[in-house]
């Protein structure tokens, strides 16, 4: 017993000492642009978190293989959040000052985004939340450091209703219809409610809200209710295992998959591949891109990284939906830095504050995107002080039983509806925080 206790005491002491050592290990100042990467490669949301992380990291590697941003090489470090807010905050604190300071954070979790929105302005580090996070953060007048690039949840909700209206034969045909929203019971899922309620009041359709508890494997009673109420359409606002469970329950209930619409976080391979033919006909909105295995940038990744054994993750997943989401999120992060270099000096390492200017003045025109290899994948994105979103286009794609195929033309979200909502919500936030809107002079800086 004595020896054991001695061993125990030694372990405790050693752990204490070593942790002190590790945490104070000096990090040398390098001339590299540092990108922290918050990932979740384990836990309940790993099947969706892994491909996103692979795409993100692959793009950063690709930029280095292309020679960096005007010669500035990129460095990155992953930190595992497990989709948990407190782990995410710890990762943020750990990485924000590392290697000369973080350029930008992309937490890939609405919960972590909420927590970091409070911290980022103080640390002067921008947040990119491409396609997630707070919808009202599109208002750059209040949310100076948030960039929900290329789409918010309200854009997604709006476009889904537009496609449903088109299928029904016009917006006026929506009157009297019944749409059920099945959502992940978290800030992420609840973001969908305001826009759908707005549209419901506008067109006179009935909206019923069916929450699903984290992590989303228990949906039997949800589907009993759908079976009873027989809504005309089901909108799925899920993430992770909830999506595939939803489709399996839909199959088990005999609900037509053609009438189910998923948000862009519910329209990727991990969501449908183990349901296979059972999910045939299921629709999901895309964030501009879909599966882009044929695009130039994917070929370049395969060529320059995977062919040399430097790729991240399995080769056959390159170009899948969530991989592309990671890839284009990283592209925004890098292009903002390139834009900032135009102003603050080419070939220099940008601070978070300088990069923020870059994200606010993004001007990704079609030729620029084509040159980066995103021809046919993305539409132009250009941001401004007032508009931190930059683009509000989306398409619908449909699962054929074995692959995702585009099934609609381009839609643009209706700014008439969304703009006032964003402004009202942003003003409410500003009032709560006792913030004032940024002045015109602040926009210039």
């Amino acid at each position: 017993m004595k020896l054991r206790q001695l061993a125990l005491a030694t372990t405790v002491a050693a752990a204490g000492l070593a942790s002190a050592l590790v945490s104070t290990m000096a990090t040398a100042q390098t001339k590299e642009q540092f990108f922290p990467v918050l990932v979740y490669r384990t836990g309940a949301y790993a099947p969706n978190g892994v491909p996103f992380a692979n795409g993100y990291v692959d793009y950063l590697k690709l930029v280095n293989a292309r020679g960096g941003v005007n010669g500035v090489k990129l460095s990155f470090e992953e930190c595992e959040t497990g989709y948990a807010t407190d782990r995410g905050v710890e990762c943020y604190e750990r990485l924000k000052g590392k290697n000369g300071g973080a350029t930008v954070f992309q937490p890939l979790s609405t919960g972590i985004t909420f927590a970091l929105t409070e911290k980022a302005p103080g640390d002067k580090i921008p947040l990119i939340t491409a396609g997630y996070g707070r919808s009202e953060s599109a208002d750059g007048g209040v949310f100076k450091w948030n960039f929900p690039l290329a789409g918010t949840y309200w854009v997604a909700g709006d476009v889904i209703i537009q496609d449903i209206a088109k299928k029904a034969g016009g917006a006026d045909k929506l009157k009297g219809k019944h749409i059920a929203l099945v959502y992940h019971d978290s800030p992420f899922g609840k973001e969908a409610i305001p826009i759908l309620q707005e549209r419901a009041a506008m067109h006179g359709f009935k909206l019923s809200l069916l929450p699903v508890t984290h992590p989303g494997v228990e949906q039997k009673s949800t589907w009993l209710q759908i079976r009873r109420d027989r809504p005309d359409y089901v909108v799925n606002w899920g993430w992770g295992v909830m999506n595939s469970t939803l489709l399996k329950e839909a199959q088990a209930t005999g609900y037509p998959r053609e009438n189910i619409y998923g948000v862009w976080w519910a329209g990727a391979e991990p969501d449908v591949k183990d349901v296979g033919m059972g999910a045939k006909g299921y629709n999901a909105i895309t964030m501009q891109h879909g599966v882009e295995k044929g695009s130039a940038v994917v070929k370049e990744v395969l060529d320059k990284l995977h062919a040399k054994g430097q790729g991240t993750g399995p080769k056959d997943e390159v170009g899948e939906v969530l991989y592309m989401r990671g890839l284009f999120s990283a592209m925004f992060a890098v292009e903002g830095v390139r834009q900032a270099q135009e102003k603050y000096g080419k070939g220099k390492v940008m601070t978070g504050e300088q990069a923020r200017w870059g994200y606010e003045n993004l001007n990704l025109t079609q030729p620029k995107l084509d040159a980066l290899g995103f021809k046919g994948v993305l539409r132009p994105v250009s941001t401004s002080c007032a508009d931190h979103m930059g683009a509000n286009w989306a398409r619908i794609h449909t699962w054929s039983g074995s692959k995702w195929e585009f099934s609609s033309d381009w839609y643009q979200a209706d700014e008439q509806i969304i703009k006032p909502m964003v402004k009202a919500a942003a003003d409410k936030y500003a009032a709560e925080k006792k913030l004032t809107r940024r002045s015109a002079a602040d926009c210039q800086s």
Partner: protein
Amino acid sequence: MAFFLEALLGGLMAGMLYALVALGFVLIYKASGVFNFAQGAMVLFAALAMARFSEWIPGWLGLEDKFLGNLLAFALSASVMFVLAWLIERLVLRHLVNQEGVTLLMATLGITYFLDGLGQTIFGSDIYKIDVGMPKDPVFLLDSIFPGGVLVNLEDVYAACIAALLVVVLSLFFQKTSTGRALRAVADDHQAAQSIGIPLNRIWVIVWFVAGITALVAGIIWGSKMGVQFSLTTVALRALPVIILGGLTSVPGAIIGGLIIGVGEKLSEVYLGPYVGGGIEIWFAYVLALVFLLFRPQGLFGEKIIDRV
């Protein structure tokens, strides 16, 4: 009416599955006094093993036959669960004899973390498929009586049958075999059992192995229903109200408790849920069990002697 029947049936089917997980808890608690929180992790681990082996084995052996592949995968997963049971007894339980219940509970929580990490390291953390040929599409009964019929899920029916079969086999095993009698003896009184020559350590290995097998069966059923993925560990939390309702030490209690909880939470969610915003089924099951506990502290079929205050 048709809808009520559907909800009732759905609840019964779900309850049967909860009972299956609860059974694992009860078996271990009866034989070793350990409240095994790791049951959920064992379900995940077993299901991951099954899913991955059935994927790998045809490749290793060049098998074409899916049934044979599944059978081999089942055997291999069962042996993995046996090794696991043996290791747990060897490395953990043996050193914790005579500790308090809460210490043992903590140890199983430690095992939970270990298994979660180990399972994902060996087998990966993606969503995997177990395909044992369960039918996926619904059938409609009693079309003539109710418009639209009563929807019945064949997969659920099969699952419930398998669960029922497992319960019958287990009760036969407990009642009729000498090992079963030894297990019951250990459950009644550790010291007395030991003094008449029942090897305690071996009994523990057996009982953890049996719990491992129920975890495997539960894992296959749930896995085939919703895919094998990390979230399977949460089924353990769904089974806890079942065991306090049914009693920690009673096998029939686990079954009846499972059915009551299953029906109770489905009916509450569909009839009560809409009025309070939905999503109430998890806590409703716990509150149901709690209220029950206030009137009958030992659960439905629990032994009376357990700590009453």
